[in-house]
């Protein structure tokens, strides 16, 4: 897993693929922020280009940054706000000057901590196979996706394979998230004897794990 600093260094060395990797990593974050700011598709495409240009020009400054998320969040919101301002009448603009961040779509959803979490989930999901991504999205990230029969039919997988696949995918997701620093709340206080080697110190103690018979998980076909 390349760190942001690795990618920035590759870009500064003139590695075009490094720039492609950087865009692949943060493209959805940038575009998502522009969408949240209320820009239409055309404006979002233009604003995306502006953010990319600024990112490219700021690479030297960012080469020691642990994460690019704070810079990207601030810059993208500022550009989105400016773009919205441009499209307004002067009177509207004057009224909005006092609240640029809120107007750009900033809110509780856009705090850097939450954006970092989203980005880690995005990156972790990207490392999983297509099958895992689709299954986890259908099961957990798209509310109202229906029952296991519907999901199995839509994804074109046997119902009976959902259970084992789900388990494997969740383990992979957790491993990738923890590797990216996703907070595993309270895990530091847990006794080391109960730590699973697969997931490191983030595992819960065995005493807290429900004693269920295999197959008794809610509706999960095995």
């Amino acid at each position, binding site marked *: 897993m390349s760190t942001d600093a690795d990618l920035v260094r590759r870009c500064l060395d003139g590695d075009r693929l490094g720039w492609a990797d950087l865009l692949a990593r943060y493209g959805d974050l940038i*575009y998502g922020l522009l969408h949240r700011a209320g820009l239409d598709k055309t404006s979002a495409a233009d604003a995306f280009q502006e953010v990319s240009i600024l990112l490219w020009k700021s690479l030297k400054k960012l080469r020691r940054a642990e994460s690019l998320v704070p810079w990207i969040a601030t810059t993208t919101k500022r550009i989105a706000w400016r773009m919205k301002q441009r499209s307004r009448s002067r009177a509207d603009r004057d009224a909005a000057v006092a609240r640029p961040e809120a107007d750009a779509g900033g809110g509780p959803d856009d705090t850097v901590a939450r954006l970092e979490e989203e980005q880690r989930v995005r990156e972790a999901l990207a490392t999983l196979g297509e099958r895992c991504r689709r299954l*986890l999205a259908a099961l*957990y990230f798209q*509310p109202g996706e229906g029952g296991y029969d519907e999901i199995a039919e839509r994804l074109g997988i046997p119902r009976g394979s959902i259970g084992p696949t789900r388990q494997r995918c969740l383990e992979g997701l957790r491993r990738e998230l923890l590797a990216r620093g*996703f907070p595993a709340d*309270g895990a530091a206080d*847990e006794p080391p004897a109960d730590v699973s080697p697969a997931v490191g110190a983030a595992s819960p103690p065995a005493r807290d794990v429900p004693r269920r018979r295999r197959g008794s998980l809610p509706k999960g076909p095995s």
Partner: protein
Amino acid sequence: MNDALVLAFETAAGRAPGIEPVAAALTTFARRVVDAGRRVQALPACPASVMQRALEAFEAPSSRGVATAVWRLVFDSWGGAAPALRGGSRSRFLRFGGRGGQLDLEIVAEAAADVRLRGTVDGPVGPLVLEIAPKAGPRVRVPVRAGGAFAATLPGDSGPFTVAVRAGRRIVSRTGRIPPQGGR
């Protein structure tokens, strides 16, 4: 552990009632992942065309350094007209041309307000950005849209400005100084 992980996610996503005891840390973890995942899923992915445009806008350092073409003024709608003959129109049309293409520019100066610029760039290929450098104030960069169209706004007190067409970090062409209110 594995069953607990599944149960935590099932509960966090509302697929299970959550009556079984699961480690608090795992429950919180699952809930945060599900919340973050739902926020991510609710957003559109960046379209491939947008990504491609950003990708192509930049060239490796080794391929930079191509000479910049200076486009000269070939038409000015106010060029031969006395101020009194310009009528009530505040629009001024300019055409710059030279090696590699041309730039059509309409300048609309609103009294005591902004200077609006719009026009088209013909010739240079690839994702382009127009960079307007006024004598006073910061540079303004606007993307050139499909078809070569662009639009920008400068503060009214920006003074004369130059326009450069950029492809990534490379300046493809640029104009000489343009006075916003007329004059040569």
